[in-house]
Structures are given as C-alpha cells and as structure tokens.
C-alpha cells in the first residue's frame, strides 16, 4: 500500500528554501524539494506540501515534473508549524502518514543503502504506532530542535514519554532521560516522522500552536516511539545551514579531495 506524506514548508522564510539547489557528486543540481521527494522513495504514492498563502504558482513550477503526485496546500494564515501540519488533515484522512519538515536536508550515512524513511515506516508497521526519527544532539544545539525522553525499548528505539520544544539544557537534564545516550546529548527530532491519524485529532483540539505540545499529548494517549536512524540532517534554514549541507554532500563523493583542498586554500588566505 502506497502511503501519503506531508511536507511542511510554510514557515516564514521558507518560500525559497525548497527551490535551493545543491551540487551532487554526479554533477546534477537537484533542488531541496527534489531531494525531499527522492527521500520519500517508492513507498509514498502522494505527497502534500504545505506552503505559504498565495505561493502555489511559485511551488507548482518546482514540483511540476515530480515522479509522485504532489498536492500543494496553502496555509492561509501564518499560525505556526502545528497549524501548517493540520492543513493536511483532509489530505491524510484516516491513514497514518509520513511527515518531513521542509527546511531540513537529510543524508543517509555513507555506505548505508537503507532508506531513512523506509526504516521508519518499517518500525511503524511493526509496532503499529507513531514513530519519530531522532538524532543524539549535543546540548548546545537544543535551542534549534524539539527533543524527546523516555526508556529504551531496545538499542536505538525509545518509548517516548516526554516531548519538549527547544528545551534549555536545564529542562532537558531534568526531564529528558534516555538510557545509553552520551552525557550532554539528547534525542532531538530528526525531522522525519510517521504519525497515526490520532495526531491530527490532537492538533485539531489543541489551542496551542505547538507540535511538541501535541506530541506530548500523543505520547500520553497512544504508544509513541522514537528511533535513532543512521543519517544526518542539516537545518538549511539556519545561518550557513545550506553551506554545511552542500559540504557534507560534496565530501561524500569523488570530489572530496578537491573540496578539502579548496577549503584549505580559503583557510590559508
């Protein structure tokens, strides 16, 4: 069964992010939007992109030639991330759905042929519950991410009990316990999730425009897991995020030495 995916790209300043291109080692220049759809792979039949109001024409151009069906949903008012996701409620209906944030660039670990999304979908299917990909992240970066805590079910898989949005390390240390994670590191959202439709109900009921608050409710109502998946994500919305993503991508291919030499030259000057 082909699944549905929702990508949120309606945040302030995201109008152009999906259009940004990165050079690949095989000398292509796909856009971030292309990368995201590529990441969804074969398991996804249809994707909805939540975009800012009035930006349909701008995005149609980008996804006009996509391999999968793409539906653009405008968020009529800029009421935050949770509200943006809720705009896709009709689109997902009663099914579980994959969710990706549109301001991240995802990269599987080198030599790992597994698809990041497939990995998560498999876990969702096995456990029959919402699953979020997480990545151990050092505490200095907590202010950029939502983070979860809870007991480990097995290596790399955790039962989510607590969800906090951009916690301070003080809060994180007190509330986000996860066995086996290095001191000073916390399980922060990777940006890829598979949610049950229950989340949409919670978002619809909630008065707060925070996905983390909704996820905290989800964790209370349903079984909710987090899994460390073998890859990296780059917040391309942050300062130098795109540059970092480009460097990470470039350093994986045949041009590695060339890029390193270029960087050394820049540094030496």
């Amino acid at each position, binding site marked *: 069964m082909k699944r549905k995916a929702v990508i949120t790209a309606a945040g302030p300043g995201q109008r152009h992010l999906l259009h940004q291109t990165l050079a690949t080692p095989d000398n292509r220049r796909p856009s971030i939007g292309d990368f995201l759809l590529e990441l969804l792979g074969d398991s996804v039949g249809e994707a909805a992109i939540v975009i800012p109001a009035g930006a349909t024409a701008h995005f149609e151009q980008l996804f006009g030639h996509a391999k999968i069906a793409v539906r653009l949903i405008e968020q009529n008012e800029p009421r935050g991330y949770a509200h943006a996701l809720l705009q896709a409620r009709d689109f997902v209906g009663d099914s579980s759905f994959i969710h990706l944030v549109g301001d991240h660039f995802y990269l599987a670990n080198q030599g790992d042929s597994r698809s990041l999304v497939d990995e998560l979908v498999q876990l969702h299917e096995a456990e029959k519950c919402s699953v979020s990909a997480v990545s151990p992240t050092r505490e200095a970066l907590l*202010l950029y991410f939502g983070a979860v805590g809870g007991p480990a079910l097995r290596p790399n898989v955790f039962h989510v009990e607590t969800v906090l949005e951009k916690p301070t390390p003080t809060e*994180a240390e*007190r509330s986000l316990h996860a066995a086996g994670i290095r001191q*000073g590191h916390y399980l922060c959202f990777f940006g890829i999730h598979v949610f049950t439709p229950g989340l949409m109900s919670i978002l619809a009921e909630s008065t707060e425009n925070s996905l983390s608050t909704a996820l905290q409710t989800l964790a209370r109502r349903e079984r909710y897991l987090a899994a460390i998946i073998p890859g990296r994500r780059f917040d391309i919305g942050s300062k130098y995020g795109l540059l970092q993503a480009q460097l990470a991508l470039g350093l994986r291919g045949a041009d590695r030495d060339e890029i390193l030499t270029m960087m050394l030259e820049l540094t030496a000057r």
Partner: protein
Amino acid sequence: MKLLERITSPDPSVRNLSFDSWADGQPENELLAEAVRLESFRRESQNLYDRVRALIFLATLHRFQLGAAATGTALIPYGAVEHIRARRFDQAVSELLALQQRHGASPALSSALAAAYRGLAFQTLADQVRRSVREFSGNRWMFRAGHVFDYPLRLHPDLLAGDSHPVLHETTPVRMDLTHSAWSDIFFLAMDYPEGARVINISVDLAVRGSGASPRPPVESFCRVIDEPVIRLVSVDLGASADIASLDELFDFARDYLGLLKAAVIASGLIPSGLEGSGQPLPTVLERLTGRPGLGIEIVSQVNDIPKGSRFAVSTNLLACLIAVCMRATRQIRSLTGPLDEEDRRIVAARAILGEWLGGSGGGWQDSGGVWPGVKLIAAEAASEGDPEFGISRGRLLPRHRLLDEVTPEARRRLEESLVLVHGGMSQDVGPILEMCTERYLLRSGREWEGRREAVALLDQLAAALQAGDIKRLGQLTQSNYDGPIQTIIPWAGNAYTERLIAACRAEFGDEFWGFWMLGGMSGGGMGFVFDPAAKPRALARMPEILATAKRSMETSFPFAVEPVVYDFSVNDRGSTAELRTEGDAILSVPYYLLRAPALLRTEPRLLPAAQRAELIRFARVHRDQTDTLFDRMMPRDDSPVTVAGASLQDILTENGFDAAAHELLRAEYRARRVGLAQNRLPASTVIEDVRREHVGPAVDTHETIGRQALRDGKLAMVTMAGGAGSRWTKGAGVVKALHPFHRFNRHYFSFLDIQARKAAAARLPHIVTASYLTAGPILASGARVSRGRSIGLRMIPTVADLRYLWEVMPQQQLDAQKQKVRESGRASLLNWVVQTGEASDYLDNLPSQCVHPVGHWYELPNLLRNGTLKQLLDERPALQYLFLHNIDTLGAEVSAAALGQHIAGGAAMTVEVIGRQFEDHGGGLALVNGRPRLVEGLCLPNEEIEFSLSYYNTGSYWITIDALLKAFGLTRATLGEECAVHAAVRRMAHRMPSYITIKEVKKRWGRGQEDIFPVAQFERLWGDMTALEELPCAYAEVPRRRGQQLKDVSQLDAWVRDGSAADIERLLRTE
C-alpha cells in the same frame, strides 16, 4: 561494644551508642588498639558516612583520650604540619602514624593526628556535598559548556521587545524557621540522618517598624537588556556597581561587593561555570545570549532595609531571587512572570546551593525557603536509585518541601497577631556552631543525642500547635526548644544578651509573654517574642526600648553590628514571583535611581545615550516626589567620616599618652622597610635548639608546703592581663573580651574576668587587672581593680611586601579549593587597597577606637610601675613579694601553692609556666637560643620548622619576684614612688625589648550591618622577651595542658568543654 561496632552494627540502638561511653577511662593500649581498627576500617570502607564517622571517632580519640593518656615524648614532624596546612590530610596521617609506630604515642603526635583526621572528615563531607551539587539534575550542563559555541541559552524574546528594554522584576520573601530540629538542615547531617532532618519554615514579608513602610518581600532583583556588551551588576543595598567586561572579572568573586551577584550569574547558568578560564570574550557570549551584537545584561539586587545577621537567610534568598530572575530571562524557568511552579522552585533552590558554594559561603538546605510560599514542612529524603547520592549517603542533597495547607489563614492571622520579630543587633558567624553540631551528631554524645531526639519530636508538637492556631502553646514550645535541646546541644547558641531580653519580657509582661523563639542558627540577631495578642501593641511599643537598654548595658562586651530593630511582618503566600515592566513602566526601583542617577545627571543630557535619556524621563515622570532625596544624594555632605574620626581619635591619643615622635619614627622605619614582618626574625645564624629536660623543673611535694606558707603570709598578688582587643575572639570587632559572658555555668553566664576574679577571691588574693585604652573604662565599671594602660599605638596600612610575606612566606592553612579561590581574590583586592591608600600610612578610615591599638603585653606590667598601682599595693601589703601574672583567657591558670613554692624554692626572678607543645600551639616557645634557655616568639623564629622542634610552648603565665624584677628595672621599693625614675627605668627597659611588627585584622562596619575586615600593621612588645635578660634569672615549669591553654577563638569552646576544662571551672565556682 567497642567503637568500630558502633559504626558498623545494623542495630540502630548500637549505632546510636555514644563515643564517650566506651572511650572514657580506657587505658592507652586499649585506645591505641581501637585506633588501629578504626584506621584500617576507614581506609577500606566503601560507605562515605561510615568513613566520616570513623574519622571523627579517630580525631576525638586522639584529641581527648589519647592526648591525655599517651606518655611518649615524640614531637610533631614538620612534614606532617605542612601536609595538614596544604590539606593533604591523608599523607599527614600516614606520616604521623609511622612515627607513632616507631616512637610510641605522644600527646603531641595525637594532637596532630586529631587535626589531620578532623580535617579529613570535613574535607570528605564537603567534597561529597560539592559532588552532589554538581551532579544535581539540571546543574550538570553548566560544567560542560566550555566554549562560546557550546553556549546553549537564549534570552527570552519578551526582554528584547519594544523600544525601551523591558525590566524583569522578581520579589522574594525571606524565611523564618519555626524549628530546625537542632540544625538538622546542615547538609552533612541531613544526608546521613534524613529521618531526623525536618524543618518548618515560613515565608515572610518584612518592614522595619517606624520606617513608615508596610511589610513587603525583603529581597528584589531586576534584569534587563542594556545597550552595552557588558554584564552590569548593581547592588543597590551595598551601593556598589560594576560593568563586567570579561569572564575573568566575573569569576573574581571577592574583588568587590558584588560576589553574590556574580555567584548568581554563574549559578543561574547565564554564564555557566564551564566558561571559567576558557578565554572566551564576554561580548561574544552576550551576543549569543541576546542574538544581537553590542547588547548586554544588567542585573540588580536590592535588600529592603534588613540588617545583616537577621537570621532570615536574607543572603540565600537574595541569591535565589537573583538566580530566579536570571533563569526566567534565559527561559530555564517556563514562566517569565508570576509565581514559580514546584519543579522550578526546586531547581532554583539547587542553584542557590551551587551559588553559595561558588561564593565560598554556605547555609543550610532550608535557607532558600523564601522561594516557596506560606508555611512548609521541609524534610530530607532517603536517596533512591537514580539519585547521584544513592549508595553514597543515606539522604539526598535536596529535601522535599510540602506546603502545610492545613495551617489555616485564621492560624496565620493569630500568629501575626502574637509574634514580635526583632533584630537584636548582633551579627555572628554561625560556622563554628555548625561544625560543632556535626561532630556531636557523629559522636552521638549522650546528652546531645538525647537533645537531638527531643528536638525532632518537638517539631510535631510545634506543627500541631500551629495548625490548631494555638499560639500560646507554640510560644511555650519554641521557648522550651531554646531552653532545652538547642542549648543542650550547643550552649553557645544562647547568650547573656538574649537571656536578658527574655527576662525583661517576663518581668514586664508576665503571663502575657508566651515564649521566646530563636530564629536560625543562634540567638542575638533575628529573634521572635510571642505575646498574648492583647499585649502585642504594647510589646511593639516597648521592645525597641527593651532592646536598646540591654544593648547599651552590654555593648562593650558583645559584638553588636547594628542598632536593634523591631519588624512588622506578614506571612507571604506567593513565594518568589516576577512581573515584566514594559514601555512607560520599564523602570527599576527608586533606590536604584538614587544610586545610579547622580552620575548620569552630571553628564550633559545631550551626551547621554538615547535609551538612558528616555529612562530618566520615565523615572522623572513617575517619581517626581523623589526630587529632594535625589538632590541630597547629589550634593556633597559635610559629615565626612574622616573628620569625625580624626577629631575624636586625637582625644583618645592624647588621653592615652600617645608618643607622636616615636610613631613618626616607627612609620619612617616601616616605610623604609627597616622594620617589618621579615625583619622580626632573628638572624639565620642564631642557633635555636630545644631545651633539655633539666631546663624545665618539676614541682615536688616540698614546694607545696613552701607555697602554702607564702600564701598564708600574704606574699602573693594576682595580675590578670586584659589590655588586648581579643582580635581573634570577635574577628577584630573591638569589644572587651575580658567582659564577654562567653559561657554559662550552672545557669549563669560568666565572663573571662568573672572567672579570674572568682579565682583570686577564692584564694583571698589581691587582684589587679591590667587594661588598655580600649578595656580600662568598661573593666573599671565592672568593679575590678584596674591598672590603666599608659601606652597606645596608631595602626598603619601595611606594606605590600608585608602582606605578601604574611600570605606567601609565612605558613598558612589552605582552605577548601573554592574558598581558597575566594580568599585569594579578596587578598588581591586588599593589595589594591593598600596601594591606593598608601603603604605605611596611618590607618584612619574607621571608628577612632579601631584605629588605635594596644602595644603588646610587655607594657602591662611596667604600667603597674608607671601608674603607681604596684606602689599602692606594696604600701597596702608590705609583705607582698610575688606576682602571678597571666592572660585573661588562660582560664585554667590558678594560684597553686605547689607552683608558687617551686618558684620560691628555685630562687629565680621569674618562673614561666610552659606546656608540652601540641599541634595547635603556634607562636614560639621555650628554646635554647645560642645556648641560653629563653622564650622565643614565633614572629622571630628564622623559620617555622624550628617551632615544631621545640618541646614546650609558653602559656603566658609567670611567677615573678617583685624585688628581683624591680632590680632588673634598676628600681627598688623605695624608688617606686619617684615618678621620673620609674618612667626613665621603664623607657630604658623598653628600648632593650625588641618591637615586632604584626598584622592584625580590624573590622570596619558600614551600611546595614555590613562588615569589611582589613589587615592593619601595628607594633608590639612582648613580655616573654624579658626572659632574654641576663640580669633576670628565669626558670621554667611544666604545667598540665588544661592549666596552660588559652581560649583565643570561639571555635575552641567545644574542645574546652570536652576536655573537662569547663567542668573544672564549674567545680571552682560551685565550691565558692
């Protein structure tokens, strides 16, 4: 059941057996065998508290039992002394035990072992508290953030909104403890005995009665963004501010009066501890915090009129208040405004503990109680799996707070209607009491342990009375808590001043006075008096007078820091809470502007940055009524303290025979470095060796007979030296130590002088008390026969060289790492003070009596000659031949027929009483100097190592043959009446005596009970140097330690009671 079993037994009834019940009266071999078992146990035990208890057992065993029973003569190796000084206690123990193994136990070795074991015990406990604080969940990250890229906090966006930076304002009540169950909130104690660690404390708002203000939270803090890349710290109450531009400055705690604010900034995580020494630029950190370059933070503290020593834990609650405001600003607390939730209060309390540790201070775990609202029961909790303390201590570091909602508003109202809160004016260091308490707990000393159990049981009764709103019962219970357990455990928690106040209330209010309520660790500062509500208005009106009268009658003998005050108070139901002031309301408090605005107003308005101009406009709009106060602040005042001090200083100098010419000469010599600490020392070529046995004569039976006869014949008078300022006793507070009623015997307080006078009276001896400018008046008023001092010196600012010599060359006891850091930072500031004030210049910036000094006890006996006291005495008692001269604080010194007989039989002009040297005896001793036995002062020993090779220490007690002494002065009984001859003789002798430069500590009081301690240079001549005179044949007699030891420091009191000295005096007083 021996000692080890009392630690290891699973049966509480065995574990709670007292140390003394086994150790007292055991023979030396039994004691040594048990010491060996305990030593091996403490080295192997995995349990922290078992180890600590074994260490305290060992310390006590050596200090008291073995110290008395050991018969060996081995001296303390200097290597062990150095280890103890450097806090390498374990190495010291090893070295001392090896020596004990070779030479057998000796009192000297046992004294050093006692010091090392005690040091190790407290070091182990302090290390564990520090570990627990650092490991407390929510505190750990601050020690990892070592680079600006690791810096994880961002300022709350609301603080950056708008044109004028909003002001975040936090207010916090202080806490008043109904009972602390006998200091059960000491971390060490609560972590070992959680079931006994319970406190009821109440958050209160206060106002000083008569100030016109209504009760409000006594501590406040403010935080806002400023347009400069600095951290601006302002302490409104201390009148201090600083723009911190670098991390190094921030971590320099004792550099100024802003240590508490700095500790709060660090403990709140605003600048995490991990950044210390990282070399990161502060503006970069601030840019990450605020998200914009060029911005900084201003943090302001304010205490509303509460004097220091209030026993309301003002400083801890101020620290917590500052931490809370910083944590709100950095979003570590979820709500920017309003009260805190329970989780937030707990993390603020944990951070306050961390802040206290950083600042080198420390309180109990209930002290941040003001963060919570209303009445709460605070109880320690057993450590469980997952806690950093689990497996190490039985209890957790942080207790659990439970709000006592069962105390109804009606009960609170009744409490408010009955309780009168006061500050008695004393501000004392509770530190020694807390250490005594910990030791006594670990030893389970019989009466004290029983007292602790009683105190724990009293808590439930107090809680029940409070819940029932039965305030009469409550007053009775707080009174019996003070009379019973508190003073059973630590007698010095009470004092004569408090007793006088209680007696005055009883006398004046009779049954309407329901009881006394001690607040905090000791009485004399913040205290409560519970009255019938009908009598409270009268009590409020009368208490200021009762306090003032008691203070006036005792202020020469007690270290009062402030004038007593009475408070209005109300229970605070909100705890720590915050508000955000924005736009037109974005201003701080009036006192803040009274402190800061004068400097801004002196600047041309057009030169002021726009934001500051706008802020002043806002302030002017809201607070136009402050014009007069502001005007007064800006105008110069004519009450310059220097002029006032200078005028009356001159009076004191003139009245006391100050020799200005000699002072000029000394100052010039000091400035030229011809005299100074380094110059005190004898030349290195001087041969200094230990005396031999034959130099110290033992008393024999026949001596007693001779002595008795001499006493019967009225040949002896007793001279007590009481001219000193007792610097160590009150840390330079300048009170008359002789008159300090320091201990209660048989329910009555006695001063040092009372005891010495009773001894003289018991022996039917004439008794002269020698006094100085500082002590003469009050001692005379006490009815003693006084020999007035005729010598006075003017203190000087020390030289940098001398301070460096004192701190870097002379031996010093190193402190715990953080305290040592604070101490060193304080010393750096003192060196700056010296440079700015002028090295070797006169010290004038204090009360006149604190600027002058007594010039050493050498003068006290010659003063007897100069002021005619000795002549008068001889005229009254022609048979008089001998004097027994001793220090006021040598409490064991008494007239013994055997000692007098020994002096007479020996034929010496002066016999000096000496005691076997122990670890705590510093300051020279008896030595062979170039082959001749004499006393040498520690000040003049070429190095400290020599001191520990000397077997005997000087007690400062001398038997003197009057005629031989007069002869040495070139006088006779007949020429004593010739004033000129006497003066010339004394001056001649004085010139032959060395003058030592010493550095003493002097307190300077300012503000609301604040105190600064400054080092000052003064000179002194010491009586012991008379033993160097060829023409004054001297003999030396060894006396028991209890007879010869001097009480110099309050922390010695506990040992003084434990070793039986207090009981000796009690017997003496009872016999009389």
